């Protein structure tokens, strides 16, 4: 039996990243379970990070084999798409001994993802290719071909070098593969929110900016750890503006539905699309601020260009 990993087109890059399209539970299991079993048979470490309902059917189908697979509910572990590379994929792959292929099933895009989340989801899928270039890793990404809109399925052909069409077995090259173009296309402007708590800051007022965010977050209903997270994210983003974004910026905090949002705008431009998505090595001195924000926020959206950078993050209230 062969699956995505075994039949993908030959490439000099050992990294394989097929999209698996499925129309029903049967196709889901046909596409995922043999992929897991092949890995286990070869002694390869395997992780499955998919939404909870699919995780259950994969686990049930694997039976006793499920015990040797790392199982993660992507709705929790990957709630913020910006933390999936450092917090899920590389967290698993980097912890494995060298010399064996690592297999991961990762499903970051599901039918319940909002229009606000989607740009971050598709950028994440595109950036996986750069994040894993040269690694002996396979990341198989299932896509619900029935419930996801057409443009999402089209984008999956641009973010994955190979695709496995619904109901078929071998992976084929995706002619639409263009991950950099996807990252650029979904670098969407974040329209200015005018009725937010607004606090312009410079180096000397960094503590005041953090206090202003905390006060507003508390007023809007945040408590406990989430309120601390808002303060920490504000500190990291505003400090980045002072150090790398022209020395100053504007902080805004407001509420939308079940979330409190915090946004920092400055005049800098982010040139590294993987910023905040690489796990930090233990001995690395700085550079963990944006990573921390990705790890604690429910969602992080970034728009960057010649006119400056806006980073917006969502905290549940």
């Amino acid at each position, binding site marked *: 039996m062969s699956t995505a990993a075994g039949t993908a087109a030959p490439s000099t890059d050992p990294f394989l990243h097929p999209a698996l399209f499925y129309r029903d539970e049967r196709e889901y299991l046909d596409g995922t379970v043999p992929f897991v079993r092949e890995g286990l048979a070869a002694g390869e470490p395997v992780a499955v990070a998919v939404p909870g309902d699919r995780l259950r059917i994969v686990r049930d189908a694997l039976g006793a084999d499920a015990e040797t697979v790392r199982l993660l509910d992507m709705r929790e572990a990957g709630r913020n798409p910006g933390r999936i590379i450092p917090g899920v994929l590389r967290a698993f792959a980097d912890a494995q001994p060298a010399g064996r292929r690592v297999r991961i099933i990762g499903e970051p895009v599901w039918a319940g993802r909002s229009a606000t989340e989607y740009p971050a989801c598709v950028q994440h899928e595109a950036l996986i290719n750069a994040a894993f270039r040269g690694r002996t890793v396979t990341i198989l990404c299932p896509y619900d071909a029935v419930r996801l809109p057409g443009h999402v399925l089209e984008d999956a052909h641009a973010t994955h070098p190979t695709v496995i069409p619904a109901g078929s077995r071998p992976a084929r090259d995706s002619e639409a593969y263009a991950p950099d173009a996807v990252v650029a296309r979904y670098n969407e402007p974040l329209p200015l929110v005018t009725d937010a708590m607004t606090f312009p800051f410079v*180096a000397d007022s960094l503590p005041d900016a953090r206090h202003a965010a905390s006060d507003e977050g508390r007023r809007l209903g945040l408590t406990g750890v989430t309120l601390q997270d808002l303060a920490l994210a504000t500190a990291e983003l505003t400090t980045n503006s002072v150090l790398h974004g022209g020395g100053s910026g504007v902080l805004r905090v407001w509420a939308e539905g079940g979330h409190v949002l915090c946004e920092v705008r400055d005049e800098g431009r982010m040139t590294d699309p993987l910023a905040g998505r690489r796990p930090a090595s233990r*001995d690395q*001195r700085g550079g963990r*601020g944006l990573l921390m924000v990705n790890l604690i926020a429910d969602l992080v959206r970034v728009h960057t260009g010649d006119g400056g950078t806006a980073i917006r993050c969502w905290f549940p209230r």
Partner: protein
Amino acid sequence: MRAAGEIGLATHMIWERALEQAVREGEAVYYLELSEVTFVDVAGAGALAAAAGRLGDGRRLVVRRPPPTLRRVLETFWPDLPTIEVSTS
């Protein structure tokens, strides 16, 4: 050592110097009293982890009553650092 206030961009230098002194003094257990510290950012936590990493065999830093985010950041990035101990009492 006892610290007060907040550890952020404006105070990183002082914080790192204090930690450097803790490493140099050579005591087996060095206590950092942080109950009056209201906030430590990620870089401040990183400086603490770096200092703890430079301690020799058998030495450790005991961080007393730190603000909650420090514990969170340490657990996130340096979960198994043997030379650092967070005490809540």
